[in-house]
């Protein structure tokens, strides 16, 4: 009788998908650096336009020299050419291409109740990408994610030290309520209220205020409060439960094409993916849903390469225990035992 090989060793050639998480960190850091660089460039252009080098304070002159050095590598006419990249993740112009956050468009629509087509179209590319890749903005671009993930690591350290850190579970659907209430308030007050509670917009703005204007707005205070919320109430709580932008992206990416999927034959039920998931999803139970932001942390940590990207519009739910896990092997053994006893 054919004996199924139950102790099949995982393939030794590991897939390259697990390096995606490093790429993601690189992207996040680049985006954040750019958000700090663009206001600096803008300030440098002001000094340049005014021919004001002799009037600057020594520290400003130092700043001017550094920016001159940095920009001299790729432009000869900084005053003109550096205008090519302006803005932040909320709304930006990249080489003449207008890009806006879908939430900005929706919020502005709610506030003004008027269609302005060029602005509507500027969200087209982000929306299309979200339909294909789901909540990728949250995991791969959002400048707040970088800080929130570091904050989340900090909370792990605090827990190691025996200090309090929040592990409250709230309802994930809360953020859809926040989105709806935010839009309703935008309509009621006639100004884009969602911009005040949306961390990526806040960070883009506040970095500009801090660098170019030398002040900080109310957004900084709000952002610090969200950090405290994450630390003391719920891990990554703002993204999970409250972020209106995350809610919008989740809705848009519900039937995304690229989603992480578990190969049940390669899973050994170790549960590391469930523990690492920042959004408290359960990759090991095939529970991704619309919340998954394709951050690939679970792919990176999976010891048997059971998780991978697949092209399909729904999760393959309820695949059961991993074939390499103890539970599945136990059940197989029992089944074989039964077969033997029944004499077949």
């Amino acid at each position, binding site marked *: 009788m054919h004996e199924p090989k139950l102790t099949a060793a995982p393939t030794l050639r590991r897939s390259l998908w697990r390096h995606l998480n490093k790429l993601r960190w690189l992207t996040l850091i680049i985006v954040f650096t750019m958000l700090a660089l*663009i206001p600096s460039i803008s300030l440098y252009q002001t000094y340049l336009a005014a021919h004001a080098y002799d009037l600057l304070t020594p520290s400003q002159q130092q700043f001017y020299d550094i920016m001159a050095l940095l920009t001299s590598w790729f432009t000869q006419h900084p005053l003109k050419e550096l205008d090519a990249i*302006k803005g932040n993740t909320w*709304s930006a*112009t990249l080489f003449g291409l207008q890009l*806006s956050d879908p939430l900005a468009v929706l919020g502005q629509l709610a506030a003004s109740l*008027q269609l302005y087509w*060029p602005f509507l179209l500027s969200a087209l590319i982000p929306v299309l990408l979200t339909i294909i890749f789901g909540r990728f903005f949250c995991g791969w671009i959002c400048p707040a994610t970088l800080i929130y993930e570091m904050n989340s690591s900090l909370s792990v350290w605090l827990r190691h030290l025996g200090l309090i850190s929040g592990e409250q579970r709230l309802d994930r659907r809360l953020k859809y309520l926040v989105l709806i209430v935010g839009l309703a308030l935008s309509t009621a007050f006639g*100004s884009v209220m969602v911009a005040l509670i949306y961390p990526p917009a806040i960070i*883009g703005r506040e970095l500009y205020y801090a660098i170019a204007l030398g002040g900080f707005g109310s*957004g900084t205070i709000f952002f610090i409060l969200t950090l405290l919320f994450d630390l003391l109430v719920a891990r990554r709580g703002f993204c999970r439960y409250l972020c209106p932008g995350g809610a919008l992206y989740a809705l848009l990416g519900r039937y995304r094409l690229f989603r992480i999927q578990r190969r049940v034959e390669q899973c050994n039920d170790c549960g590391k993916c469930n523990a690492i998931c920042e959004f408290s999803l359960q990759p090991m139970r095939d529970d991704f849903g619309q919340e998954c932001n394709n951050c690939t942390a679970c792919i990176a940590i999976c010891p048997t390469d059971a998780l991978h990207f697949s092209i399909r519009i729904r999760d393959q739910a309820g695949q059961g225990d991993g074939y390499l896990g103890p539970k599945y092997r136990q059940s197989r053994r029992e089944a074989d035992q039964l077969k033997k006893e029944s004499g077949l």
Partner: protein
Amino acid sequence: MQLRPPGALRDDHAFMAACISCGLCAEVCPPKCIQFHLRDGGSSANTPYIVPEEKSCILCMKCGEVCPTNALEKIAYKKEEIIKQVNMGIAQIDRLTCYPWVNTGICGACGNICPLGKQGIRFEFAGIYRPLVQDGCVGCGQCVEVCPHPSLPIRVVASGMQSIAPHTLKSGSLPF
């Protein structure tokens, strides 16, 4: 006086509804005259404004060009277009202080700096003496920056506001 940047929608409520506070206008502004309501302003929080007396606008019209939502309208960089469409405010001269008006000398600084030339500010006597603000003035505030008088007899006020001196004004466009 806080004024909206050039090309801002005339109705300030419409402006607040249209502005998504992305800060692009300020990022492209060469003289960095555009500021924001940082921790004030209520529902106009994070929206841009200019205080022309602190830092004047150079009327380069870059902010309107870059504004994604048309809260700042696109206006061509031409004198006629700027005069026709920009309406931040209007300069006002206090005739009890201004040097030529109180007969203490010939100055003409405001008229020389005005980017709109004779349509912005004109001189009453022989083209050199006693400045008079014209209807074309858009309120950029460059005259305030160069005014040599320590108490600044020339100021920019919103067009609908009460004037600091009673003379030529078209009233009623900006609601603050």
